[in-house]
């Protein structure tokens, strides 16, 4: 094979109770974008971590430009010209944006770090990539999307031969993704080999030259992207035929009675500094989507309803009754559930087992003195592991050792278990593979059919169009419009998001 710059042979990796990789081969050519595909838990991230020395190499070999290498740590990997963006944003929240970009390779003047240069170069780097962030700002104060972009910026700025991107696009919106792709193509043209992990099939076909598919820790095969039709790719990933474009909405008629008392009726709810007062009504059986650009305040809107950030203005009516929500538990008691956007920070309780992570919300609702019996817990856990096909060694496995997508499924299970009347899903499909994504969308519609009210947030407009019966549009912390029925199409949504030239806060209601 010509121009192979990185080759992995016979890679295996075992975790207690899981064979994450068995005898996987992988080859990356110079100047190609190579997609690494597979379901949640297929072993993509593990392969990357073995490659970059986060995990020890248990067997097999890695050659780079014909030379055998062993990376004992990401530091080694970087020295060998491999730079990586890992799946979860892995930066330091207590350092500034600029520092995160340059730490470990700071420009120096003599012995000292040249902070001016750091800031200047950061500014330039951020500007080049169109990232709106001040280099002097603390990273922890930036939204995840920005953090994600910064992680990418850090990786691409290093003169690398191999760039690895593990689901970099999961929290980016289309604009950002487009920016990233331009960048990736440029790097490819400069001869960098790129490994790209994603669950978005369109993206794969948009930028990738070749595709390697993993399933259950085993290599399925490597293919030219042009020679592998989409349906076949999915089939290879899942090991069975599957049509991800199935019109899942059919069979779910919209039976929402818009005149009934809304389950949730927010009037003038707002939270200073994040979301301006807004009105929002959600009815039984309805899936309402929130859309807007990055940072438009979708998450903030639902956080204010749920009491994650206590609303400081307006009133909330639940089933027509005025209620006061001071803390999330109040909302839960009123039948709400909230799947947060930032899985790592607000979702998983890392050291607890899958079982405990699933039952924790229900247990909190029941109160301290009504401990669920072990049997109840086990049954609940097993039911959802089965239902959502969560890939885990056992229900007692700590959630932190699950793959990213499977962690997300556990959090979804947590909220389904509480059987809420009103469920808020903020990016529920982030990092979830195609098969399951469809399952989740179906689930959402099923729940609506059962008479639950749902608010759904996703960066994928496609996905929203498939599930939502109504959409609210946000811009800069204001709710700027609401669309339903025929208006639910890409063009109209885009128009509303962009807004008219002069109207900042017109209300389409």
């Amino acid at each position, binding site marked *: 094979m010509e121009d192979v710059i990185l080759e992995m042979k016979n890679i295996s990796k075992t975790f207690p109770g899981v064979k994450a990789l068995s005898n996987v081969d992988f080859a990356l050519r110079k100047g190609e974008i190579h997609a690494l595909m597979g379901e949640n838990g297929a072993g993509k991230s593990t392969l990357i971590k073995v490659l970059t020395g986060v995990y020890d190499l248990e067997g097999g070999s890695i050659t780079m430009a014909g030379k055998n290498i062993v990376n004992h740590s990401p530091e080694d990997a970087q020295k060998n010209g491999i730079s990586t963006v890992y799946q979860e944003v892995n930066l330091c929240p207590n350092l500034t944006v600029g520092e995160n970009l340059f730490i470990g390779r700071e420009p120096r003047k003599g012995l000292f770090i040249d902070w001016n240069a750091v800031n200047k170069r950061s500014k330039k780097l951020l500007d080049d990539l169109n990232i709106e962030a001040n280099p002097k700002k603390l990273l922890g104060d930036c939204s995840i999307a920005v953090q994600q972009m910064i992680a990418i910026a850090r990786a691409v700025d290093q003169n690398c031969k191999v760039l690895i991107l593990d689901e970099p696009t999961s929290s980016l919106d289309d604009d950002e993704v487009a920016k990233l792709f331009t960048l990736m193509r440029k790097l490819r043209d400069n001869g960098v080999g790129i490994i790209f992990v994603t669950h978005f099939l369109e993206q794969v076909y948009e930028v990738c030259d070749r595709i390697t598919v993993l399933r259950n820790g085993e290599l399925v095969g490597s293919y030219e992207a042009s020679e592998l039709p989409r349906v076949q790719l999915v089939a290879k990933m899942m090991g069975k035929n599957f049509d991800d474009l199935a019109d899942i909405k059919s069979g779910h008629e919209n039976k929402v009675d818009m005149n009934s008392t809304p389950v949730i009726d927010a009037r003038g709810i707002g939270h200073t500094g994040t979301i301006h007062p807004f009105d929002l009504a959600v009815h039984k059986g309805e899936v309402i989507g929130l859309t807007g650009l990055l940072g438009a305040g979708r998450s903030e809107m639902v956080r204010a309803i*749920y009491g*994650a950030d206590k609303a400081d203005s307006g009133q909330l009516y639940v089933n027509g009754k005025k209620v006061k929500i001071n*803390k*999330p*538990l109040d909302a*839960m008691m009123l039948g709400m559930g*909230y799947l*947060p956007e930032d899985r790592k*920070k*607000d*979702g*998983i*309780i*890392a*050291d*607890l087992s899958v079982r*405990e992570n699933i039952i*924790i*919300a229900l*247990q*909190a*609702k*029941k*109160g*301290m*003195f*009504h*401990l*669920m019996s072990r049997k109840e817990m086990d049954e609940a856990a097993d039911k959802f592991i089965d239902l959502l096909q969560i890939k885990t060694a056992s229900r007692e496995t700590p959630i932190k050792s699950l793959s990213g997508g499977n962690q997300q499924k556990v959090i979804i299970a*947590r909220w389904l278990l509480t059987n809420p009347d009103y469920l808020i899903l903020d990016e529920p499909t982030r990092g979830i593979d195609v098969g399951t994504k469809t399952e989740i969308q179906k689930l959402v519609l099923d729940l609506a059919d059962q008479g639950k009210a749902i608010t759904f947030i996703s960066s994928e407009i496609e996905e929203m169009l498939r599930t939502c019966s109504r959409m609210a549009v946000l811009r800069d912390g204001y709710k700027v419009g609401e669309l339903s029925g025929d208006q639910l199409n890409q063009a109209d949504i885009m128009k509303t998001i962009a807004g008219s030239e002069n109207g900042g806060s017109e209300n389409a209601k």
Partner: protein
Amino acid sequence: MQSNQSKWSRITHAPLFMPIVCLIAVLVLNVIQTPTFFKISINNGVLYGYLIDIINRGSELVILAVGMTLVTAASGGQDISVGAVMAVAAAICCQLLTGGQKTSSTLAMPIIVAAIIGILVAGLCGAFNGFLVANLHIQPMVATLILFTAGRGIAQLVTKGQITYERAPSYKVLGGYIGKCPVPTPIFVAIITVIVMQLILKKTALGLYVESVGINGSASRLVGLNSTMLKFITYVICGLLAGLAGIVASSRIYSADANNIGLNLEMDAILAVALGGNNLGGGKFNMMGSIIGAYTIQALTTSLYAMNVSADQLPVYKAIVVVIIVVIQSPVFRDKIANASKKRKAVA
């Protein structure tokens, strides 16, 4: 063969395995040094022997370790004021019993009432710590530093700077023996504390809540847990238990010695938690581990006394044993050993 091995590995990976091994190791060391170490006899109508000493003398430490485990799990920090809080509880209890006298051989009020008041005041101290940590988000070690310094001062204020003696025989019961029962009372107190705590952990969701809050506070809040309240509660429990330990310690010497009751015990309690395999950074905890850890420390102290190690060198031995224990407990070290033995097998 296969199943044998997996059974063995299941045992060795059980959470309590290492703490128990360490305790046994310390005890075995004793038998070599002091052959009579395990001898238990009835002397003067009571049980008598080094083993009894360990279990008896370890009681206060066990009680403290229980509270310390909860605090550590919930807040990822330690309460270093427990020793001083013990002194406060003892001072209040004794002053109430002597009716403000320096020495008394009668009781100014029923022991149970005085003891409960003492314990409640200790709980109040815990509440103070809890407020600082949970509500004001002050780092635990610093928040509890306040009572660590002030506690003995308060105790002295209560006892007017002198040791208060309550010489009524009934006050000696808690730290001594109940009637003709040959088993020292502190053992019962410790066992009851442990049982009650185990029941609470088994029958309520406290344990799960505490772990959850300790691992990820913001996620816990979003699933409806009141992390402020939970942290606060653990500190109150820790305070109450410190109070109980203080009263037991005071009863042993039928007096309140503000300067010395529980002196340096906070460090031992923290050590017990760590030896029990718990992460001092909070999160998942193992109560039985801490209790075994506490007895391990007491076994060590008693053993060194039994071997007549001179007191000034005692900390050196203690340090060495502690390091050995934590090193063999360390997963990294165990992995290394496992790898080495695997390699040796492969060679053979």
